[in-house]
């Protein structure tokens, strides 16, 4: 990444960190922080970073979205960014342009429409996922059926985009409105109070214009999934960075046995290992972001590398932070548990590390 972009990202990062500071769990006594003000995100232009300027977007790339994602992770922020921006806007940008699509995109970018996308059943842990819905041509019209668990941000979404297999076996997007008869959305209880996941069930006849085709049906669902998996890796990187910072700050002031605990090698070396792990994570996330931005056909590999590594590394780093904070870290008030629960959830979202490694194993090629 050249210097110019790096500076731009540093600025974006600083602004985002500032704006999200009030959303951290410690600000709310150790529970999940207050939800991020969605209209503020819209005003900041962060909902439409990747949308073309003609559709009120910033015409930027996933690289900029990634900066926001990492900062959302750092703050363990409560915001339907995954559903609306990463997947929703992402799906619309992969769809064949129509005026309906353009309209929904504009509303999403303006913060008026919140979106959610069902790629498959999250409980299946398939990488890439298998569509959980299908369309049959019936006498009444297009009949949409299926069910998917663990759909991010579906409860608060104004419109659901369900990836479905059409009668020709081709993946399509079906736009449905939650609450409408035949479309059930049930929030799933979660230990991580900063995320929102739901079960979506559909058994409904949809009008023909609710079925949107992908511009490239062969690659689109995979690219959308890669966006999701990479978004979670960005989140994990942010979670880990926040926890290393907190641990270093704590270990520098907390004294035991007559000196700051950070002067003990057991603490110092553990922090050093956290930094190394996060540096490794950063490189893998960076590589995947570049590959996604470039539309690299091998982007899926880069994303799975990032997801496989960061999933576990984030849990380890946050867990080590809890350990090094001692008893304080184990209290609800410290808020570290919020990061830990989010890191543990992240590890299972959009494919477990093991599932991503299985995907990568398929391309191990001796010379």
């Amino acid at each position, binding site marked *: 990444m050249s210097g110019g972009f790096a500076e731009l990202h540093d600025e974006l990062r600083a602004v985002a960190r500032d704006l999200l500071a009030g959303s951290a769990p410690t600000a709310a006594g*150790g529970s999940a922080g207050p939800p991020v003000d969605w209209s503020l995100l819209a005003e900041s232009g962060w909902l439409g970073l990747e949308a073309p300027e003609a559709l009120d977007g910033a015409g930027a790339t996933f690289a900029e979205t990634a900066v926001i994602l990492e900062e959302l992770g750092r703050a363990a922020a409560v915001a339907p960014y995954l559903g609306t921006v990463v997947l929703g806007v992402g799906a619309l940008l992969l769809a064949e342009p129509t005026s309906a699509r353009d309209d929904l995109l504009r509303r999403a970018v303006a913060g008026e429409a919140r979106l959610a996308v069902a790629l498959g*059943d*999250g*409980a*299946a*842990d*398939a990488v890439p996922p*298998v569509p959980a819905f299908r369309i049959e041509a019936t006498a009444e019209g297009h009949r949409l059926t299926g069910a998917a*668990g*663990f759909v991010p941000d579906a409860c608060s979404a104004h419109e659901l985009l369900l990836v479905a297999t059409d009668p020709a076996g081709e993946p399509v997007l079906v736009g449905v409105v939650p609450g409408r008869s035949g479309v059930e959305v049930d929030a*799933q*209880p*979660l*230990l*991580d109070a900063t995320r929102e*996941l739901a079960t979506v069930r559909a058994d409904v006849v949809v009008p023909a214009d609710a079925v949107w085709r992908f511009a490239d049906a062969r690659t689109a669902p995979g690219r959308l999934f890669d966006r999701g998996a990479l978004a979670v890796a960005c989140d994990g990187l942010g979670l880990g960075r926040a926890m290393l910072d907190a641990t270093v700050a704590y270990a520098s002031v*907390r004294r*035991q*046995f*007559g*000196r700051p605990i950070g002067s*003990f090698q*057991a*603490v110092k070396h553990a922090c050093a290992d956290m930094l190394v792990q996060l540096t490794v994570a950063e490189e893998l996330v960076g590589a995947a972001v570049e590959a996604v931005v470039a539309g690299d056909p091998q982007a899926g590999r880069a994303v799975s590398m990032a997801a496989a590594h960061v999933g576990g590394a984030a*849990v380890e780093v946050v*867990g080590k932070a*809890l*350990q090094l904070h*001692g*008893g304080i*870290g*184990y*209290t*609800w*008030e410290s808020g*570290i*548990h919020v990061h*830990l*629960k989010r890191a*543990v*959830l992240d*590890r*299972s*979202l959009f494919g*477990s*590390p*093991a599932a991503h490694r299985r995907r990568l194993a398929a391309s191990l090629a001796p010379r």
Partner: protein
Amino acid sequence: MSPATDTDLEAFRAEVRNWCRANVPAGWRGAQTGVSDDEFVSFQKAWFQQLRRAGYAVPHWPAEWGGGLSSAQQMVLYQELAAHDAPRLVLAFVSIHHAASTLLAAGTDEQRRRHLPAILDGEIWCQGFSEPEAGSDLAALRTTARRHGDTFVVNGQKVWASGALHADWCLLLARTDPDAPKRRGISYFLLDMRTPGIDVRPIRQATGESHFCEMFLTDVEIPAADLVGPENAGWQVAQETLSAERGMTMLELAERLGHAGFGWLLDACARPRPDGGRPLDDPVVQDRLVELEIEVTALRRMCRHLVERHDTGGAGPVDASIVKLHYSEVLQRLTDFGAEVVGLPGQTVLRKPVSSGWESGAWVLDFISSWEWTIPGGSSEIQRTIIGERGLGLPREPAVGP
């Protein structure tokens, strides 16, 4: 061990098995998940009395006080309780272990007669050792007890007092000689929790539960008769109390990890995913499960040996630290893997049963609460220092002035 004893033991095992089959409440885990504090307390007290009637509540106490099972019998008892997934004695834990061992080791006859029968009748104790500023450095405690004639007046703050909200009495450490070196000048008290000036506030933990409390002590008066051991020798008394907790308790926990813990993990891995696949069919999962099974197997045997060595006086100075460190880490790895392998569905399990051991099948919560083992009671870092210095004789760090 002579064949005769083996036969006796097998007879005892059969007795415990039969008792467990008849007495372990069916479905108690489900029933005790998400219950109120009051229900928890009454369930624990009832279970304690049920065990007491069978002679299983305080098997490690001397026969004269209501115990008297041999170590070998206690091992059998805890193995069978674990195998039958009986509730654990959570509420009475400090009472029957720490309080009793303190009284037996350093208490007066009067103190023993007053409290040991009361404990059997349900008197609940908590431990007032840790302090906010001291952390793992127990010797740095600041709570003071100033003598005025036959009374000590206590001021200070305690943290991590498990079950203090329900406690009738507290084992309290306080500094009686502020001028003495760190580990001297501390005294050990029995504190009646009804004494004026005690303010108990629950601490909410990372899991959302509140098993621990802070205690604020303001001009709390303790009669000198409730001092345990000599004045200013509390540190030495506390060392005995702390070391008393590890042999059989660790064995019980290891047995539970081997039975319930690993068993549930296997069950979780055998549950089909929506696509029909089972984690257990994945050779990578199998490989990891076998690694964990091996570690748990070693841990259980290690605990049996520790108990046997305690019995014969052959336990090394750091054997308990090795067991605690290994248990903590195996528990953390096992629950971590459980959380990973159950995936997203596991994230929806918001509560674990109270009265259970440290693994309940609520994997994410179990994983989070595993830090309750790696941090308190001497963190894993402290255990490694103890093992290195006292076990291997490596030189201490250079002392740093205050």
